[in-house]
């Protein structure tokens, strides 16, 4: 106890900061529910062809409330950090929290990958008369179990796509958007790492440039994915309605794209924080968490590129 610090107890223990009452949780729950109610009504209205847009506005209002609450919540968190309230132990809690959150995200994608493997290896095979449960072939006897499924078992219910998004050979590699997206995302993982190193070396200029570049690469990825989707819908006839191939393709890549959006948003918030002079070489968990998330999104893409596009 050489230097008496108000944050240290006689035993040398730095107290764990337990925040006072907070309005954020209840308001966030309120915003979330309003959003979900609005969204649910919107979907049901569309399905029953009620042409009202009121529900969509409710959803938007809920989203706005939730967004405002989360903005203030994070702002408070950052302010508390500037005041030196979180101890080293509390910071470890944040690290663990992010770690387990990413694990939960991995499991979310596992559900969709699992579905993909199941249909490819089992149900599509059985429907085509191959394997132990090939008896299912009896219902649609023209069905051929090739993957990607271009000819659906019942094309009257689920229209066939004209073409899939699968790898078209090296001849067309240059015009194959998913390949470019892979290059973009893999290099963005590198750039965010360079930014991280720059942050640790107190090189703010490098940090701003490389982090900004990462965000740009992420946005370019999303633009290319939007182009890919447009091409699928307009030129290939590949939609959410085109059977199991379209279902798995759009859900896997779509949820990945949604996560890229979130990750790019997180990184751009970090970029603005860098401009405001936030982060120290030894204290920048906000940045680190966003970059972990970005690496996670990258790894998921590698899985997608292998199992959705290439194989």
């Amino acid at each position, binding site marked *: 106890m050489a230097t008496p610090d108000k944050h240290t107890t006689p035993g040398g223990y730095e107290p764990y900061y337990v925040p006072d009452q907070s309005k954020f949780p209840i308001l966030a729950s309120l915003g979330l529910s309003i959003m979900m109610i609005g969204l649910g009504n919107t979907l049901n209205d569309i399905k029953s062809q009620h042409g009202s847009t009121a529900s969509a506005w409710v959803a938007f209002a809920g989203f706005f409330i939730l967004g405002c609450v989360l903005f203030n919540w994070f702002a408070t968190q950052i302010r508390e950090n500037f005041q030196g309230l979180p101890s080293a132990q509390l910071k470890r*809690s944040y690290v663990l929290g992010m770690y387990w959150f990413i694990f939960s995200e991995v499991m979310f994608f596992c559900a969709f990958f699992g579905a993909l493997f199941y249909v490819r290896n089992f149900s599509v095979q059985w429907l085509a008369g191959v394997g132990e449960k090939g008896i299912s072939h009896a219902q649609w006897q023209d069905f051929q179990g090739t993957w990607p499924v271009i000819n659906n078992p019942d094309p009257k219910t689920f229209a066939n796509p004209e073409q899939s998004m699968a790898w078209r050979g090296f001849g067309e590699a240059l015009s194959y958007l998913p390949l470019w997206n892979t290059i973009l995302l893999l290099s963005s993982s590198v750039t965010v790492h360079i930014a991280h190193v720059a942050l640790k070396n107190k090189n703010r200029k490098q940090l701003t440039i490389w982090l900004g570049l990462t965000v740009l690469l992420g946005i370019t990825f999303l633009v290319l994915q939007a182009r890919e989707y447009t091409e699928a819908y307009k030129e290939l006839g590949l939609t959410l309605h085109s059977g199991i191939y379209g279902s798995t393709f759009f859900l896997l890549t779509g949820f990945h794209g949604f996560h890229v959006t979130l990750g790019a948003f997180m990184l751009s918030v970090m970029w603005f924080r860098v401009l405001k002079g936030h982060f120290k070489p030894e204290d920048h968990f906000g940045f680190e968490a966003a970059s972990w998330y970005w690496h996670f999104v990258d790894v998921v893409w590698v899985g997608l590129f292998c199992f959705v596009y290439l194989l």
Partner: protein
Amino acid sequence: MATGHDDHHHGPAKGLTRWLYTTNHKDIGTLYLWFSFAMFLLGGTFALVIRAELFQPGLQFVDPNLFNQMTTMHGLVMVFGAVMPAFVGLANWMVPMMIGAPDMALPRMNNWSFWILPFAFAMMSSTLFMDGGGPNFGWTFYAPLSTTFAPKSVTFFIFAVHMMGASSIMGSINIIATIQNLRAPGMTYMKMPLFVWTWLITAYLLIAVMPVLAGVVTMMLFDIHFGTSFFSAAGGGDPVLFQHVFWFFGHPEVYIMILPAFGVVSEIIPTFSRKRLFGYDSMVYATSSIAFLSFIVWAHHMFTTGMPLAGELFFMYSTMLIAVPTGVKVFNWITTMFKGSLSFETPMLFAIAFVVLFTCGGFTGLMLAIAPADFQYQDTYFVVAHFHYVLVPGAVFSIMAAAYYWLPKWTGNMYDENLGKLHFWLSFIGINILFFPQHFLGLAGMPRRVPDYALQFANFNMVSSIGAFFFGFSQLLLLFIVIKTIKGGKKATAQVWEGAEGLEWTLPSPAPYHTFSTPPPIK
């Protein structure tokens, strides 16, 4: 501790905002527990509608569609609203006190985890009043019943599940971070109380499988609203795919509801046997093995869906393997009691009933695990009897045991022991009248989820329904006892129970609003 941090050592805020804005693990634990009790009564009411209709053959009170909504909502409310939040509430109250932590790791997020729940359940319950009625496809919501043939309200059911999932994931992240990071120095993993251990593993299971549940309801949402064909063979999908993904969540979910119960019982039995728990290490390993096995047994819920033979065999044997670690546990509990100096206060009575009746439920589980036999039992009341034996005298009894055990620590007052024992015996007798005959009904071939049945099932159904009302109304006694204890009663000592060991018993009763602001010394 006169070190300028007085702002952390005040008591609770006054009025309603104490509960709305709180960041205190004890307040949030209390909120979870009361919410869970409210949901227990709501889910119980749905169950009584079911049992009233089944009192006699024929259609008496409700039309079949409402009956189906009742079975669905009963299951959903009890699983997600009563049992799971009750254990989260217990974890909130007890885990920081048991490991010498000042609070939960992430106190504000802790409150968010709780407050999502009332909104989610309000949304889900409101579906009952919507056009076309609420979810009527069973709590397992198999496609295509829950997609192609579902009422419109299914959209809100899906979103409610998403919200509950978010709540569970955040709650589990909090619990796991607390246990990993906030243990007092010297509290090594192998010194942690078993309740903490079982919750550590439960939280891991929750983080692993709640996202899978979110995934499967999302696929439903897309099949319903966006024209995908995950669960439609016409587009190359497979309705059985739904069951695979659902049960990949669903089986670990079963253990999510029972592992903390194991933890509770492993705290209570040593206390009232005045002996240390027999085989602490093996309890930890058994819990971990059960958690691991829970990921590779899911398709035993699907023996009759027409799986390849290799699948039937694999899932049959892996399921039976679970009996080994579970047997280790039961053995350890009994051995703890062996030659102990036993006394039978209410928590101990519930704990012993847990060991006996949960084991009965486990044995019927083994019967169901035998694939060829399961073809006979599938979708009968035998299955209903089986999982109610593991969930009601299993999970629910352990929650009640925990409530009696820790109530003096929470309120500072002793509950009325005579009333507690009365509540136990009413529950114990009620539960057996309620569920035991259902074994016979199932073996005789009565299908589950039917509002009407053939005449030969009449007698046992009547007995079961009498037991249901008997058990259901006995629970009002629990409410009375708890309120009476909060209002007053004999003052509890810090130690409360003669044989109790652990950090929570070193704190005064009632436990102060903030405890262990500095970590306690661990022997």
